[in-house]
């Protein structure tokens, strides 16, 4: 056992380092990822260790970055690219939707694109305009993409290693609010996570379904609820696509009540998809309509107002209180 206490940022860095060591076709590139090590230091030291051919800075153009990765993946390499911030990734949207997502399909499986698009996302870090979007729903909506987001340090390492080895393109959403959260982890123990949700906490009364930055908030809410005598289960979705219906629905069936927690605006979102799926599949197990705690349908607020947009323990507990307990 080699337990170490590291942050999610360090775990992601270690995952890149180990992947590049294990496979010399793995290439890391993007804006400021070279000498600087990325604005969040996720690529810290990679250029020094592996050279400029393996980890390099690109011109400041996201469509070019993703488009070049497509070509490199077509030609036998495994590119990992960084979009510096969620909202700065939008110039690459056409490449992602029209090419990254569709290449396997349009060529009848002849061209695989083993590539990873890393996107730091979400708020809670006091970022000014365009630095705090939750853009996961755009990608989850697009057939052909695999979309994952870690909520723990261990998952950050394991999911990124798996994403890099994956035969399909993976949109890897990194909750930047959790970059500095530290955990004791054993990086030699890697469980595959793509396609699977995981129950982070058992509880008999209601299920909180969350992902990415909302998982620690949900766990905190469950802790607070337990103090008040209500036992809440917490499911970490972590793989938005493919979605693990089985684990999520099993958890909801055990409790009969559920709240979905997500930072993104609720309208036409991953959270609304989860509610729809669970309702379709588990209707007869439900004692109350599923509630959601999401961001409002507004542009992400400026730093001094962002706390009103983020799911909070209180909002989660209020939503749980609203699950028609009087009827049971």
């Amino acid at each position, binding site marked *: 056992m080699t337990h170490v206490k590291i942050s999610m940022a360090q775990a992601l860095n270690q995952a890149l380092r180990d992947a590049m060591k294990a496979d010399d076709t793995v290439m890391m590139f993007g804006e400021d990822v070279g000498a600087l090590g990325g604005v969040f230091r996720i690529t810290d030291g990679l250029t020094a260790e592996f050279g400029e051919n393996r980890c390099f800075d690109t011109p400041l153009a996201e469509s070019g970055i993703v*488009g070049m990765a*497509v070509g490199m993946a*077509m030609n036998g390499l495994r*590119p990992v690219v960084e979009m510096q911030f969620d909202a700065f990734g939008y110039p690459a949207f056409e490449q992602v939707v029209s090419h990254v997502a569709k*290449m396997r399909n349009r060529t009848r499986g*002849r*061209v695989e694109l083993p590539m990873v698009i890393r996107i730091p996302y979400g708020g809670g870090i006091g970022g000014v305009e365009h630095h705090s979007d939750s853009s996961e729903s755009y990608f989850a909506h697009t057939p052909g993409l695999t979309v994952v987001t870690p909520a723990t340090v261990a998952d950050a390492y394991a999911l990124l290693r798996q994403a890099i080895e994956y035969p399909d393109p993976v949109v890897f959403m990194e909750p930047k609010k959790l970059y500095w959260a530290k955990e004791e982890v054993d990086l030699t123990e890697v469980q595959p996570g793509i396609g699977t949700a995981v129950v982070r906490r058992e509880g008999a009364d209601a299920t909180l379904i969350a992902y990415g930055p909302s998982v620690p908030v949900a766990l905190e809410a469950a802790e607070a609820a337990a103090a008040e005598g209500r036992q809440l289960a917490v499911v970490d979705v972590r793989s938005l696509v493919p979605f693990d219906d089985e684990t999520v629905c099993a958890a909801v069936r055990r409790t009969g009540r559920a709240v979905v927690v997500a930072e993104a605006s609720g309208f036409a979102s991953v959270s609304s998809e989860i509610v729809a799926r669970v309702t379709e599949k588990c209707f007869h197990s439900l004692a109350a309509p599923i509630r959601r705690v999401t961001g409002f349908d507004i542009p992400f607020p400026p730093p001094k107002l962002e706390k009103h947009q983020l799911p909070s323990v209180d909002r989660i507990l209020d939503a749980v209180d609203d699950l028609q307990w009087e009827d049971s």
Partner: protein
Amino acid sequence: MNSVEERLLPSAEPVRLLDQNGVPHDHPSYRLPDRETLLDGYAQLIRGRRFNDQASALVRQGRLAVYPSSHGQEACQIAATMVLREGDWLFPTYRDSVSIVSRGVDPIDTLTLLRGDWHSGYDPYDRKVAPQSTPLATQLPHAVGVAHAARLKGEDTVVMALVGDGGTSEGDFHEALNFAAVFHAPVVFFIQNNEYAISVPLAKQSAAPSLAHKGIGYGVPGERADGNDLAGLLAVLGQAVAKARAGEGPQLVEAHTYRVQAHTNADDATRYRQDDEVTPWLDRDPIKRLETYLNHQGWLDDDVKQRADAGAVQVAERLREGLMPEPEVDPAELFAHLYAGETQQLREQAAFLRDELAREEA
């Protein structure tokens, strides 16, 4: 030694080695290709023209959904692939079917997209031809990626990336040129300037002195050629490919040509241009001028002509016969190529469609 201007600026006039009357002209930087190359090019032009016209006819007969023809642009189509080696890559647009076929891809597989039985019908790795791109200029960053990967792997691959005049307005055109220049990627960006982006003429597309000038801002040398002169195109593109292969970085070539037909069969060109604009271009036809020159040289004997005609007849027959039967499509395939593995959700949706079809049949 060379000033920046000398290195980057295109020629003052498009390079033309054979004028529209088939008369050869000396050029300080480019030489006429040899007899064998021109005769091969001639046969390919004849075949390309027949391919275009047969495909258009098959649209009218309902055998193809749509066909964006390169009629009149065949010299560009042929030259783009004639200058490549076996291991080189071609990144075509939707109007470049003739180029794809001249690269050796089966004509029927080439037309899968336009027939509508799948999106791309050929194996891109087979002849090193990327899937035809319909979103404009989006294939150009891919071309840079393939070239950069080749360079990192120590291969001397050159990538020929095709784009139209309209495509040079897209952001991806500029990002691709910039990336290619910064990474010194062996890409030849080849603009077929046919004067129209559907209905919008070049004057409304760009105020640049020429599209080849667009390379200057990125440090990419530009050159321009008469797009209906196969000899000039082979010389210019051949040199661009040689430079890219020799490690001189990306090259930009603009061919001046003209879309003598409508954008596609679904377009009505009379709404935006007059016939008297088109007519002079018919006299600049790429086949006619090469034929005149070859005849004048005494190189176009019956044997050569027969072989060229035979190639054209063969490709036309292949199209007619290959496209006549209704293509077999399999609804189950709709779910087959999204991911390397299966997902529960797609399994369920495939089963739904299967059941629906079974009920319809019952």
